């Protein structure tokens, strides 16, 4: 579709094309896409085809889903958006890291906050061992060193049971 940049003044909805790193193109209304600061600036500079080299098709699809939903945000559907957000962050950590990097690159602040909160929630109260498992981190301390580091901040390890589960 060849909508030109001047068409917005004629009342037609201005369309933009986003291109993922895999080469897939997505056509969206400008009003939806400008939630993303990076694209907004490119639109202001007159671009209508926007290549996103750092975002693959899978991630871009998710992000478009998010932007579409949030473009509908009004006073009355707060609850609906909330439920959408809750569903949106259900996924593997792998996907979430992919998303958070993309959201950071695209400067979608709302999505950034949502994802950071979600990742934090999932680390919260986890045992150190569980965190290592989940994020594929190898422990490079010797047992003595680990004991020493634990001692340095004893206060942080006090109180309560920590969650050992890996979800």
């Amino acid at each position, binding site marked *: 579709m060849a909508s030109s940049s001047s068409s917005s003044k004629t009342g037609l909805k201005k369309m933009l094309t986003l291109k993922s790193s895999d080469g897939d193109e997505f056509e969206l209304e400008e009003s939806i896409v400008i939630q993303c600061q990076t694209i907004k600036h490119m639109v202001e500079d007159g671009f209508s085809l926007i290549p996103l080299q750092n975002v693959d098709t899978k991630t871009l699809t998710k992000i478009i889903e998010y932007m579409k939903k949030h473009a509908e945000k009004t006073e009355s559907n707060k609850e609906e958006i909330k439920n959408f957000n809750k569903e949106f962050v259900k996924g593997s*950590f792998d996907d979430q890291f*992919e998303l958070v*990097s993309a959201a*950071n690159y695209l400067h979608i602040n709302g999505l950034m906050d949502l994802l*950071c909160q979600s990742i934090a929630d999932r680390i*919260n109260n986890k045992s150190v061992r569980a965190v290592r498992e989940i994020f594929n*981190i190898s422990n490079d301390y010797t047992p003595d060193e680990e004991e020493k580091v634990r001692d*340095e*901040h004893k206060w*942080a390890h006090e109180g309560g049971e920590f969650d050992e589960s890996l979800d």
Partner: protein
Amino acid sequence: MSTLFRKVWESVSTRSSSHSNSNSSANSIDQFEQMMMYIQTASTGEFDRIPLDIFIQILKILGPKESAKMSVVCKSWKFIVSDNRLWIHFLQNQHDAWDSTFFAETHLRSGPLRTFPNSVPDLSFMSIYGQRAQVPGAIIIDDTESDKAARGQLKDAIHSTLFDMNVPAVCAVNQAVLALFAAKKVSGIVVNIGFHQTSIVPILHGKVMHQVGVEVVGIGALKLTGFLKEKMQQKNIYFGSLYTVRALKENLCYVALDYEAELSKDTNASFQVVSEGWFTLSEERFKTGEILFQPRIAGMRAMGLHNAVALCMEHCQDAELMADDSWYKTVVLAGGSACLPGLAERLEKEVCGLLPPCMSNGIRVLPPPRGVDSAWFGAKLIGNVDIDADP
């Protein structure tokens, strides 16, 4: 590995650019090399995939306790978790009782000042936080209107001595506030007679009301001593040093309740200064303190102390911070020169004379509650307790 390299570099470069006028660039490169030594073999696991800023953002959401716990995960996590900017954030965003200890935001905001030579470990706000989580803090007294240079020196002092001495935490509190606490008050006006100047500081619930305005009069202890010195020279009284003059000021001088009446009295009195002998003074005894009220006696164009206090009270009244106006009617004197006998009574009399009855009613001027050590006692009080409520 390259991602981690980039992260470290970002962190180091933002750190050094945030205080660009310091001479830290050479040091931060050393520090950078040290980091690289061990980080080359390390990985943050899946977190390698996200920028450091986001990692820090997630830690901020996790909160101090969880973040500190995560330093045990692996070496590179410990390095990231120990980031001073993160802990400054935690220290500044307390919602519990620590608020009431007026944490030294101005000092903390500027962050670690510069990297010290290797012998001195870098200041870790993380350990400050940890220690502060367990024990009440120690206190540093900051002079009321100290200029930037003095603040710089204070910071250096904090670095070079206190943290080496394992002081658990440092809290910079306005000296005037401490003097008020020593008088067991949390609201009132503190008249702090400093070395160079006198400040009149309105304080409500332990916070300096900068919006009301702090009055500063350019007369301090130095001027008083200088004036007495001049008077003694005029009378050809010989003295060894300015310390002698100061000793005489501290022991013979006072403030007259009625200056004119005092002039006609016989006010001769003597004092023995060790290794200098006896000195006898007369009208200089009360003229010295009088320059606080009548600066022109000393040839200065400045506002009298009573005028400044009355002005401050008017500002307090106009600010309408409280439904009840009585908070500013307690005036507490602070500073060595405030110990001059008769000063509190005279100030009370003069201020009441300047203000309309509705405002002057109930004004009380208290002498320094603990003499020259008032601020110290105030500091001791908040060193041990949380101050949440007006007693």
